[in-house]
């Protein structure tokens, strides 16, 4: 069993400085944005959604990993707008996958409502692989184990509250 403790901001910076070939540019950009977002939010005023500006912990238990290779890429959002593409995630996380992986812990800037989606980047190229018609071919999942149905699960299905800490058990189909 291996548990990974991550701070979203620090992880993003570590990943960037490591600059491994496994992290492709789109992810670097996302991670960089995530780092900026995280650092900004730690110094900004409490938003109406957040109930506290104290850093909180989100534990994500991951099941259904098919191959112990590559990385998990997770994007965490705090609003339906950013989740829907109008804005950046509050955190973007990249975690190497190995056979012992069971859970990971992400530090979030404050208590509040969040939702995330993640995919298993099996070949570690930093991007969701697709078939020639653009359909995703790497496993993906959503918080609350919400399921996509002919489109991504909506924010209303993936949102959950974090009050000091929270645990999400998510399984790839």
């Amino acid at each position: 069993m291996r548990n990974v403790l991550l701070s979203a901001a620090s992880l993003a910076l570590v990943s960037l400085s490591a600059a491994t070939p496994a992290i492709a540019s789109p992810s670097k950009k996302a991670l960089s944005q995530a780092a900026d977002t995280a650092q900004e939010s730690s110094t900004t005023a409490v938003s109406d959604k957040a109930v506290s500006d104290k850093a909180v912990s989100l534990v994500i238990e991951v099941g259904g990993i098919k191959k112990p290779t590559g990385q998990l890429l997770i994007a965490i959002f705090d609003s339906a707008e950013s989740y829907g593409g109008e804005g950046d995630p509050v955190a973007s996380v990249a975690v190497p996958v190995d056979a012992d992986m069971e859970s990971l812990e992400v530090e979030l800037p404050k208590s509040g409502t969040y939702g995330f989606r993640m995919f298993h980047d099996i070949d570690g190229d930093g991007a969701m692989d697709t078939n020639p018609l653009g359909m995703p071919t790497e496993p993906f999942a959503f918080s609350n184990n919400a399921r996509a149905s002919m489109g991504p699960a909506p924010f209303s299905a993936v949102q959950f509250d974090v009050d000091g800490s929270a645990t999400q058990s998510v399984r790839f189909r």
Partner: protein
Amino acid sequence: MKGAFGRAVFHTSFTVTDMSNTLDRRACLKSAFAAMSAAAVITPEIALAGAAPADWTLGVADVDRDIAPHRMTRIHGRSPQDLAGVLYRNGPAKFLRGSSAAEHWFDGDGLMRRFALGEGEAMLSARFAETPKRRQEAAANAMIVPGFGTAAREGAVVENPDDANAANTSVIKLGGELLALWEGGSAVRMDAGTLETLGFKTFRDDLAYVPFSAHPRTEPDGSVWNFGWAGRSCVIWRIGADGTLISADVITLPRASYFHDFTMTKRHLIVVLQPWIQTSSYMPVVASLDWLPEQGTRILVIDKDDLSRVRSFELPAFSAFHFADAWEEADGTIRFDGCLQDDPSFGQVAAKELLRGRWAGVPHPVLNRITLRSDGTATLEPTGHLAEFPTSDARRSGERRRLTVHVTGYGDAPFPHAVGAFDWDSGRDSVCDFGRDHLVEEFCYVPGNTAREEDGWLIGTTLNLKARATELHVLSAGRVAAGPIISWRSNVALPLTFHGSFVQAA
């Protein structure tokens, strides 16, 4: 990839951040299918409340479970010597769960039938393809997964096309594997003997979920061409006789016409773009298609050696599901047959109404010869004969042939009562009419002991409404009107199939 015509729509920059966009692109608007009318379905209760259902409704009856192997009873005749092998046939057979029903004939779960012939005996077994759709719907005790004409219902999980795969349209044995075919997703591997489902066929990891249509066409060397329709994008598959992938190229079509079948000559693939065109991403598929007859029908002739080399022909609007083998003459003239309708109302409306026990009375398709000339002109020659499910002698793939085998004899009912072999030399249709008590399914052409077309056999099935039993028949290709050489009757009435293939014993 080959040239500009074959440029794929790749989305290589897919990240978690834009996952929603990619999912949206291949999928449908939730609001769209939410707006579809609530399902009005022929549940057992509705059926019982009305008048006695028409006898043909046995052709779309619901099957609850697999059919164990059993010996069929010989009704009459003698089996031709040397005719040994297995006729596999596939078609939808599960339409009802709980108080809900599939909304379209094309959306029932695929039940693979296996008719094994040898030493004068025939055995029948049948087994459902165990798909994610079937598992979801069994767990929900409701038909919830969307399809060609069925809208998604509460609780459906469709994360990729194979979550909706009904595996219900056709079957091919390819490279030693038995594949149940649908047209919106992957082929499904089944054990050729036990019909146990073995999983989806992925020809290469990066080709998961790419549609592999129910109408592959086979070269004389056993290799196979197929397509996967995806709106304006279309995948062209080439599979070796050993079942391994040769190529899978994406081509872009000039318009997003829906098509179910294609045909080919030795040198060309022929894609008929009827003006039934995808104009939205609504689900189910029929809701995304508009009939735009003013745009006419376009026929693409694509060079097999260079998919970017395409010629286009124009014809007045017609609709069609099925075409027969094509050939090319010395001056470049291409000829092939199609079963053509004035419009797509069968697929749009009638095939939904069938599951409610009603026949919408739409016109049946007519056998036509289509000719494409090297000067760029195209003509249609209607034979006047009603015809669907055209088949022919596979040994003549890409060659001129005389016979097109087809079902016919509809009367005022939705399903045919007869099988015919149309002779293009004489212009005569030799027909075996099984009578109103039989619903006739596609007949496959099986080569006989000589190279002559008329020495082959036609093997196929009927649903005997009076005996309430599925029957298996063999006819002589040259003497169709003489009726079956031999017929067997099973002890079950199975709903109608779409397509089959005969695998001759080694």
